[in-house]
């Protein structure tokens, strides 16, 4: 299911253990999710779901919960 794919994208892009990926996980709240990792994460999500995220999405994607909300906008069921 898509949520699992999002979770794995976070694990891979941020190089963090799966347990750390929760709704409350916020951008810039851990050193692994800084602006460099953010770009890697965006690219990973685009690859996995074959979407093109725009600049508003990148700025709005401030947490794991928010990432799911944004992907739902692109008809991803998660």
């Amino acid at each position: 299911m898509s949520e699992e794919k999002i979770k794995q994208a976070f694990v891979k892009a941020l190089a963090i253990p799966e347990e750390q990926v929760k709704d409350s996980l916020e951008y810039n709240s851990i050193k692994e999710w800084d602006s460099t990792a953010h770009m890697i994460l965006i690219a990973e999500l685009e690859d996995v779901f074959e979407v093109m995220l725009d600049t508003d999405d990148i700025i709005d994607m401030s947490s794991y919960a928010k990432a799911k909300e944004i992907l739902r906008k692109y008809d991803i069921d998660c």
Partner: protein
Amino acid sequence: MITDLLEASPYSVASADKKRLLLRGLQELTVYHQQNCLAYHQLFNEPVEPFTDISAVPFLTVPLFKQRPLKSIPVEQVFKVLTSSGTTGTVPSRIYLDADTAKLQSRVLVKIMQEWLGKQRLPMLIWDSPSVIKSRDSFTARGAGIQGLSFLGRHHTYALNDDMSLNIEAINTFFERFGSGPVFMFGFTFMVWKFGVQALKEQGLKFDFQNAVLIHSGGWKKLEDEAVTAETFNSKTEDQLGHVRVHNFYGMVEQVGSIFVACEEGHLHCPSYADVLVREPGNWQVVPEGNVGVLQVLSLLPKSYPGHSLLTEDRGRILGEDNCNCGRKGKYFEVLGRMEKVEARGCSDTFERTGAGQ
């Protein structure tokens, strides 16, 4: 009615609305920094009267950020420290960011750039070498600039090797893949010119990009020494790279995110949450529109450090407000090079003696 400049589109707010909201925001920031930054409070310890004019907002000079740590947050909230060596190259400015200020800076930077690039993230060609962002914890101004703007691109490609030679293979691959569509190029003015445009010319290389936007920044000082004007820069860039719309921007590491982009007329535009004033060296009074003096920049972004009102070391003049031919609202101005050394020193001296800019 607009109630929050930070939410407004960057070039949409006319002067009456802007003045009211900007004054309120700058007032709040001044009081906030007095309460949260001891060094700032030592410089400005008078209780703040409600400002009736932007010129009443006290200002700091840029060298102060080299001389002492100026921050309005406790040490444990420091999220990132930006450094710039400046022109003298000895002691760097140190700018302390917390997560909120860093977030606000990138948000606002993206809002401004959307006006020039659109919302789509375009393939991005960076006129620099990849080593410039190697360290993730301490950023130079150059690294931070590239990092901040890379949010706006995709397929990030560095056009230069670590020794600043052209990475022809990378540029070729980028061009083959994306050259017929819209692309975004970014670099520091001098790097684009010297290691990009001129190097291409020397090697007799041309690319015919169909729809590129080049954003560049960093100052004209070195180019002026070679007598390169903006017109020359733009036309030579087109000679080597094809259809490129070129936009310069002015900004400083002490106010990251708060940038002034040149429009199609070549005028630098203030976004809604930032402003400029021009002051006369010596008496430091504000001069009328059109007169040349030293630029002061004001911004609503700096919350974690007292950088909301800064006297720069650059000369310039205001060209108008709300009436540029391009249709964008806000003041527009031009930068006319660095202040003379003597003037700059006089300014720091004045500042140190009186402890205030007013």
